[in-house]
């Protein structure tokens, strides 16, 4: 098992370097001259623009710029924002907890709703409960989040006054955005849990248990659910990236702090080092989370332990 983990770690590192190359490539084909954005286009002279380009290193060849960036990243230096010359990494680290809190609570909501609905729909397969549960889950993945977010604000903040409409101070401001985002995630988990529950129900060991006369409900919850949790967990690993990406929209709708907001602003301002930094940082988070998910399988499912 230790060996498996170290192999995973090694490939993760490779993937990380690949991600860096990819992000660097995408970000550096952004149109428009960053120098023109910093300078006032109505008064800047060509020399001023040329000087700034030189200063920003925009005149160096691509591979040189990448090499330089790579060396800096190894030392934990993600560069400085073009807009306000703040160092990128500390800024991301400062804003990440807010995004992490939102992503974590959203995942929790997604798992709770998703597993509940998934189990219900598997147990009551093809009955109304199944259909309603699946529809609720599907609604989650079928609605644009900025729309459902605004609807939640209008209902729960403006009309009912239960939760604040925006902000990132305290748990109460986390509720509406986390529900909006968690609802999306739950849609995927419902489907996953339902399918694996149905698979498990037909497994020989369940059939045997049933034949032995154990009550159906008991078997479902005790044995089938346990086995259905693994796919739910896998889904968390898969959707965590999408939930984090979802914060780009959600943090804007709910005026929350976080790295989603930072990248949205940075893309608009063509603040390349920041765009690069945030995407790369979220890739690291994605890799780490999936590593953890992989490792935690072995704890839940003995079979994986043996084969892994």
């Amino acid at each position: 098992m230790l060996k498996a983990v170290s192999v995973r770690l090694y490939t993760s590192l490779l993937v990380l370097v690949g991600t860096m190359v990819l992000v660097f490539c995408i970000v550096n084909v952004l149109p428009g001259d960053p120098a023109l954005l910093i300078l006032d286009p109505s008064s800047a002279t060509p020399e001023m623009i040329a000087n700034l380009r030189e200063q920003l290193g925009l005149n160096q060849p691509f591979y040189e710029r990448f090499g330089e960036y790579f060396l800096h990243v190894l030392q934990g230096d993600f560069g400085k924002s073009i807009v306000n010359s703040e160092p990128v990494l500390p800024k991301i680290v400062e804003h990440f907890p807010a995004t992490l809190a939102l992503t974590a609570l959203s995942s929790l909501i997604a798992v709770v709703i998703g597993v509940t609905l998934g189990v219900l729909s598997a147990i009551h397969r093809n009955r109304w409960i199944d259909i309603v549960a699946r529809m609720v889950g599907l609604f989650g993945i079928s609605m644009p989040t900025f729309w459902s977010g605004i609807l939640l604000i209008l209902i729960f903040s403006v009309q009912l006054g239960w939760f604040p409409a925006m902000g990132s101070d305290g748990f109460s401001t986390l509720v509406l955005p986390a529900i909006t985002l968690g609802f999306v995630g739950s849609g995927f988990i419902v489907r996953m849990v339902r399918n694996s529950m149905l698979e498990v129900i037909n497994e020989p060991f369940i059939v045997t248990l049933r034949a032995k006369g154990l009550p159906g409900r008991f078997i479902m919850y005790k044995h089938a659910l346990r086995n259905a949790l693994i796919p739910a967990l896998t889904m968390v690993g898969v959707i965590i990236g999408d939930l984090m990406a979802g914060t780009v929209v959600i943090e804007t709708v709910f005026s929350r702090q976080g790295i989603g907001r930072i990248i949205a602003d940075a893309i608009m301002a063509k603040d390349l080092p920041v765009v690069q930094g945030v995407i790369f940082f979220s890739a690291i988070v994605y890799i780490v989370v999936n590593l953890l998910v992989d490792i935690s399988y072995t704890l839940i499912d003995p079979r994986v332990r043996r084969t892994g």
Partner: protein
Amino acid sequence: MSTAYSKPAVWMKMTSLALAVTLVLVGCSGGAGKSSATNGGSAAGAAPSTAAEQSSTPVAGGELSYALATSPDQLDPHRSGLAVAVRVIRTLYDTLVVQLPGGEIKPWLATEWSISEDGKSYTFKLRQDVKFQDGTPFNAEAVKYSFDRIIDPETKAANALALVRPYESSEVIDEYTVKLNLSEPSQAFLGNVSQALLSIVSPTAAKKDGDQFTKHPIGTGPFKFVKWDENSEIVVEKNPDYNWAPETVSQQGAPNLDKIIFKIVPEEATRIGSVQSGQVLAAETVPPQNILSLKNDANSQLYQANTVGLPYTLFINHSKAPWNELKARQALQLGINVEAIVKTLYLGTYEQAWSPLSPGIFGYDASLEGGVKPDIEKAKQLLDELGWKAGADGIREKDGKKLTLHYVDGSPNREKRNDIAAIVQQQLKPLGIQVDVEITKDVATVVYANNNYDLYGNSQVNSDPNALYSIYHTTAPGARQNLPNLSDPELDKLLEDGATQQDQTKREAIYKEAQQLIIKKAVIIPIYVFPYTVAASKKVQGLAFDSLGYPIFNDVYIAE
């Protein structure tokens, strides 16, 4: 606010003028305003448009939460370039003088001043009882430091640099007397000194923090900086020592409020929702459709202040055929129904613009109002005369070329400007003009660097009709072209005269002629005048606006 400065007009060199009026560069958000709730009013301090009974007496204490539509870029006045930043900067810093609605300049940190014969040096006597929030005494040295800081390239000053021109140097005469020297006379200088971007900063703090001064701003203002959580909020608290408010506010001493919390809420629906749900007490930039519903809301009130300067205007690019021809431009002028646009999109909450200048500015020509009326038949006839004949698909053609209009606008859709493009596209269709709308994030490249547009709209906040110079005067060789790519000797002459003319009556006549000429030659299509709006709980009392439309919080209190 009309902006005839009370000081005699002085001669002004063209080049400096051109630079000075880029102060709020095209693309600025409309921050300046006529501080009046009703259009055409003249009192400082807008009254809420709802008839709220406001007989309660000011209460000390309390917190005001105020939702901003965008995040300030800087809290260092010398480096900022955004109107939204000025709303916060005004609470932290003071300026040497203050401008009244109507343009008159009054004392603030300076008690009196004199201008030399040649108009090139200004001597200010300063208040002696002022100190910065960090305890640094306010004196002539501090003033010298602030002005020198703006022109120091190290500071990377933006709009402040344009405003301060033609400032050259300062001399400390004594502890409380300072002389500012200009490289050439400038009529606009004293008015500019009243602007928030030329605020006096604490020399100790600014020297110590350098680049990071924006994170720990220190001034002499009625509020002290507490914290700035990026993308979330900026908090300022009462400066208890404050005792030097200008005459534009009623409370000379420290403000009523203990704290102001500026929340940054870009999403419109969320911002309005947060004021309706009571999460914040006030929110700025209310969209027109919400203005109407908030006016009927028993718990809310609405403040509105019209901006001054150049209204939102569509500039026709004269370097692109066929728009270099008068008849083609006139066809656009007659074919675009501005009244319908303004009525449809702004639901009667914005005023239609008629001139290259907005009402309230010195020299505004009200006789232009109602002058241009849409006339599709006439427009068609003009295009016919130019030889553009309708093609098979209804689009006019000439020499095998289709009649297209490349309409460029910026993203995001600020003040519904993208929607104007959508309407213009439909309005010009019956004329046989195919409008290609390009919405781009990168206006800087498309419009300014590549000159790739037939029609592009913008506005500018300004307090003097000199603003026309940088937009309409022939540009110097080698410099970037003005927005309409215009070079008209007749207009050039008027704009030059307007800048140098000392007789106010004659100056006014010159600018009226210039405005008429611009409309007659169909250089532009003026669209609307932008009102700065604030939706607030009825508990919020005493909110006022300065001569440029920025909110003033000194007298604000929360009534219970």
